């Protein structure tokens, strides 16, 4: 029986590849051993950083028998074929969100992982963040009675998607802010209400940044099957000079009270005195949800447990995202697939 999970990375286009890699190596029962990226420069850079082997072909990496699991942090549209290959090779799969850009792909990914008998976990890090887990426990304990409405932000500093060009190229990302930042809040809302969205309505505004080819702001209204209302603002619209990357906040109204979550609020404020223009910066000291998520994934593999954020959870996020685009196009609420 193995007591250590060896990871290969399939694609490193997403920012999170670095932090997931560091998290794996931080854990006694995890190790990053190989990387594939179709962008040789990115792949080699990652290989050098982690002192591991670079592969030009995903198949060659997947042939390695000492690799137990893969982390898929390629561009969104590439997730599907990489998951298919990984499942065929019998590797456990940790897939960045959104897991796919179509519901059909997401369904097929789940089916293939099931057939191959491998773990398939979606990178919904908020399911592992101590603050959002505490909220889950408070709700389960009945602290605010029945949950009636959940209104949240997962907004992003508008400069960040520009750092990696593919985020704003729909042929690689599948879309802009809606594709990128619907799923975390959609998943928290599903998780907290234990209910699925039956209705999605989205307004996409004119762009903050007219130079990019994808939408950068939106407002999504959800109706859950149990009657709860949800609302998601995942806009990439925070000004570039903001003291932080963005946020995850959620106001949860129940019959007996309200919970206000501001998951990345634990920061030290810092400002230098190099120049009068030195800007206020936040230094975060709260929970590292990437680390907690990797820890949980490794535990699922070693102890043969079901992931907390499953492929199905990933699929439901994709379904809400696709319904969002459709609703914005036709101008009325629709039911996700």
């Amino acid at each position, binding site marked *: 029986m193995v007591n250590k999970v060896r990871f290969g990375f399939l694609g490193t286009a997403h920012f999170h590849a670095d932090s997931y890699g560091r998290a794996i190596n931080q854990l006694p029962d995890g190790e990053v051993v190989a990387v594939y990226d179709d962008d040789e420069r990115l792949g080699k850079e990652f290989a050098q950083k982690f002192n591991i082997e670079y592969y030009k072909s995903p198949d060659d990496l997947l042939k390695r028998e000492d690799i137990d699991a893969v982390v898929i942090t390629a561009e969104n549209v590439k997730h599907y074929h990489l998951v298919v290959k990984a499942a065929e090779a019998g590797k456990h799969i940790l897939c960045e969100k959104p897991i796919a850009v179509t519901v059909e792909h997401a369904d097929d990914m789940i089916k293939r992982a099931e057939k191959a008998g491998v773990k398939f976990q979606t990178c919904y890090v908020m399911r592992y963040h101590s603050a959002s887990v505490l909220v889950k426990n408070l709700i389960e304990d009945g602290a605010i009675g029945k949950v009636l*409405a959940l209104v949240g932000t997962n907004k992003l500093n508008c400069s960040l998607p520009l750092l990696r060009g593919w985020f704003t190229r729909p042929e690689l990302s599948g879309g802009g802010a809606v594709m990128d930042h619907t799923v975390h809040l959609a998943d928290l809302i599903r998780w907290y209400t234990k209910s699925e969205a039956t209705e999605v309505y989205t307004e996409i505004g004119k762009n903050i940044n007219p130079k990019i080819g994808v939408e950068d702001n939106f407002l999504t209204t959800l109706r859950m099957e149990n009657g709860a209302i949800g609302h998601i603002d995942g806009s990439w619209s925070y000004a570039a000079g903001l003291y932080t990357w963005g946020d995850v906040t959620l106001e949860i109204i129940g019959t007996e009270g309200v919970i206000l979550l501001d998951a990345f609020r634990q920061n030290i404020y810092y400002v230098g005195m190099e120049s009068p223009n030195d800007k206020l910066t936040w230094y975060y000291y709260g929970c590292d949800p990437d680390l907690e998520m990797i820890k949980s994934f490794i535990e699922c593999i070693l102890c043969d447990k079901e992931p907390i954020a499953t492929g199905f959870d990933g699929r439901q996020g994709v379904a809400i995202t696709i319904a969002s685009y459709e609703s914005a196009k036709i101008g009325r609420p629709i039911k996700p697939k």
Partner: protein
Amino acid sequence: MVDKLGVAVIGYGFMGTTHLSAWKYIEECELKAVMGRTLEKVKEVAKKFEVEAYTSLEELLRRKDIDIIDICTPTNTHAKYAITFMEAGKHVFVEKPIALSLKDADEMIRSAKKNRVKFMVGHVLRFFPEYMKIKEIIDRGMIGEPVIARAFRGGPIPEWSPWFLDKSQSGGVAIDLAIHDIDFLMWVFNQRVESVYAKVERLVHKDITAEDYALINLRFENGGIALVEANWALPKQFPFTMKLEIDGTKGMIMSDNQSPVPVKLITNEKVASFAPETLPWRPAVHPFPLDPYYRELKHFVECILEDKTPMTDGEAARNSLEVCLAALKSAELNTPVRLPFKEG
């Protein structure tokens, strides 16, 4: 020195009392009368503010020395009072919302024009110091073109004034509370609303007729969007909170009345926060130059004396009401509703 303008306030509830306090400090005016339904209570208020008490509209109308009528009664009664006094040639200030229907609002606007009197609606948010600063920052072009906004306004259900809980009197949270931010956003975006998609519900309080929760998505004519959350569904200990964030093409602004608190009082029994300049009912300094209620009334008086149009005139107030009514319709039909909104 010309004679002072005589003022009468109709209604002595929360807003009536707030206005009565503010009128006392407007030197161009003399507060002369207060009117209400229950004689005993009106007398009590009148004594406190050293004015005369009325329960009869006809008697008050006979007073020739009253120039300004300030209407702080439940919203469903605004039109009736406003039009009666306009017909009598009085300048009329009416608390927001202007009315519960566009028909009433339009009649009020027509009556003010016909009788050549000044008419202003108390969209006091435009006179709050933080919102004035937001307007100034946006007007200076510091955030570029406003593109996406979120506004939050809420606290516990206003049980202290039971008429708010009656839909037929207040119109519920989508009209009474959301109208503040809707008016302000239309003003700073400098845009008409093109369409509205809303959820308006009796979320927590099922035993009242008014809705206690509204989530209103606005789409402006220039393609900008905004979320307005108006919330009376919060627990009793929740401090009254107003937040606004607007992201634009060149920058963003954020405001939250719960964070800039200059005075906190903490005892073994309670924790209380005070922002004295913006809480007129607990003024720290008299007169209180930053008090928004004082300033909106002062603005109205200036408009009368200098023959100007109030910045929150009948038209502006009507346009804000129109968006609220569209939101209610959207929630009822579960579909976006385009403006202009047609009643009925």
